């Protein structure tokens, strides 16, 4: 894999939140146009259109079926489109769809790819959503009959991680506070009106001990898009392309009981080598990163990922967050869009939101959340019941 072979040159995003009147088709068409316009290209330059899976399907007008059967290129008038498809790996979709885009670019069939994510949970009843999410994160045969949920899985991991590392519940809550501080600077975040405190997070309604409501992400309607191209073309058409400099990936399990790593304080033995690979392939190290775009979805996962990034001793991330070092103005800015917990969880879109924010930061377009002079960052995503982990080192220049 060549360093800086591919680049993103434009992004688009709609606000995340409860928007029952905004169909997923409207979201897809809107973010597609925004990304094309942001890139400065003509819509007919797009040679491939890729869509991420919509979580849950509506039998009367299924977005997934429509997109698989080529609705999007037609609807946005992408006359130069040669290839269209849908890719999904849950929360890791932003990664797997990007790899699909790279394959198409490398084949030479197209030199510009539009990638789109759209989601509207609010078209489904609370019961439909509850049913879906009781099976999405847990094994139907071996876990669901015991009343297992996504929140209980995260609660269990939090309980184990705290017990083994000595991390406190206040430190877990501090992750949520830091995410909220970033979200306050983000116009598209679901929760950007009101700051929260550690005290408020710890004392919120208990959902699954030790997790309170404010430690659990909230589902929201949303969507985003980006334009990917070869580095060669990017340099010609864009004055600030964002390059992929080095990446690492690994898969662990479907059911948590079969995870590669058993001890909950040793999760870094799974994730740290992946991050190391991404750093090494980029020729950069943790000290070169200006931002760490971590996809947690639950505060404990943010800490576990932080533990593996090389800027803090594993197990000590909680103290760093508590000291404000990952918040705006801190030494190690983390998850600058507010992450699933405060930006909102738009299904397969959490990773997209993180990736799009990474690009904005490196293009100097992150507005109030802009980390001044950001040149390099490490971006992360993962899906399922913590099934996999991906890191990408990105930069607005290719280090010499």
């Amino acid at each position: 894999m060549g360093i800086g072979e591919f680049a993103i040159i434009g992004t688009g995003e709609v606000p995340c939140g409860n928007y029952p009147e905004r169909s997923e088709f409207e979201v897809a068409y809107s973010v597609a146009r925004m990304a094309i316009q942001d890139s400065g290209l003509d819509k007919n330059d797009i040679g491939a259109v890729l869509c991420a899976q919509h979580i849950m399907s509506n039998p009367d007008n299924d977005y997934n079926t429509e997109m698989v059967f080529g609705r999007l290129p037609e609807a946005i008038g992408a006359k130069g489109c040669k290839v269209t498809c849908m890719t999904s790996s849950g929360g890791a979709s932003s990664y797997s769809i990007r790899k699909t885009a790279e394959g198409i670019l490398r084949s030479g069939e197209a030199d510009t790819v539009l990638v789109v994510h759209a989601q509207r949970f609010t078209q489904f009843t609370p019961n439909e959503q509850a049913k879906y999410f009781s099976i999405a994160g847990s094994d139907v045969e071996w876990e669901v009959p015991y009343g297992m949920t996504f929140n209980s899985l995260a609660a269990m991991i939090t309980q184990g991680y705290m017990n083994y590392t000595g991390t406190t519940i206040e430190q877990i809550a501090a992750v949520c506070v830091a995410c909220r501080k970033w979200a306050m600077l983000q116009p598209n975040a679901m929760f950007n009106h009101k700051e929260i405190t550690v005290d408020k997070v710890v004392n919120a309604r208990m959902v699954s001990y030790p997790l309170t409501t404010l430690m659990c992400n909230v589902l929201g309607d949303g969507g985003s898009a980006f334009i990917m191209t070869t580095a060669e073309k990017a340099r010609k058409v864009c004055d600030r392309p964002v390059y992929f400099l080095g990446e690492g990936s690994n898969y662990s399990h479907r059911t948590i009981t079969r995870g590669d790593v058993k001890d909950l304080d040793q999760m870094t033995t799974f994730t740290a080598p992946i991050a190391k690979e991404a750093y090494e392939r980029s020729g950069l190290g943790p000290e070169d990163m200006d931002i760490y775009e971590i996809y947690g979805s639950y505060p404990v996962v943010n800490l576990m990922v932080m533990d593996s990034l090389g800027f803090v001793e594993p197990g000590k991330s909680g103290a760093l967050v508590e000291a404000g070092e990952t918040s705006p103005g801190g030494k190690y800015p983390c998850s600058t869009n507010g992450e699933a917990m405060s930006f909102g969880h738009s299904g397969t879109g959490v990773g997209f939101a993180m990736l799009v924010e990474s690009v904005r930061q490196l293009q100097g377009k992150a507005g109030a959340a802009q980390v001044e002079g950001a040149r390099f960052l490490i971006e992360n995503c993962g899906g399922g019941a913590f099934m996999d982990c991906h890191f990408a080192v990105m930069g607005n220049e290719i280090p010499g």
Partner: protein
Amino acid sequence: MASGQIDIETIKAMLGLCDEDLVKPLPIPTKWSKPFWEAALQHKLVLKKCSKCGNIDHPPYMYCTACMADDHEWVEASGKGTLAAYAINIFGVPFPFWADLPYVVALIDLAEGPRMISNIVECDHDRLENGMELEVVFDDVTDEVTLPKWRPVDESRRG
């Protein structure tokens, strides 16, 4: 731990749920997991062991995940385990489990090596502790289905 419970009947009326929405999901055995559930019905905990390489797979799959062999035997487990981690569900669970709140879901390390997700029952929630010793108990949830669950070996922890 106050749960401040909302009554399930209130939720049912509020969301227009039918009785079927409150029926608990039960395991639907696959071809390769059927012996596990048949044994559970007889109050036996069994594990799928590969006859070729000795690997134990849980959950079991169609063929051995270590060597891909079909030949296997079902071995009876000791029914002993330890508590790796737990969560106490207080609120916001699927509606069929609402009436059980609060309840414990846990990650259990079996003495034979595999891990299971299950409920910890007959345990004072304040006396849950990582690493505590557990033993299997069988919950006959219907005439056809029995779920293996776990309780503390130490009787002083039982609630």
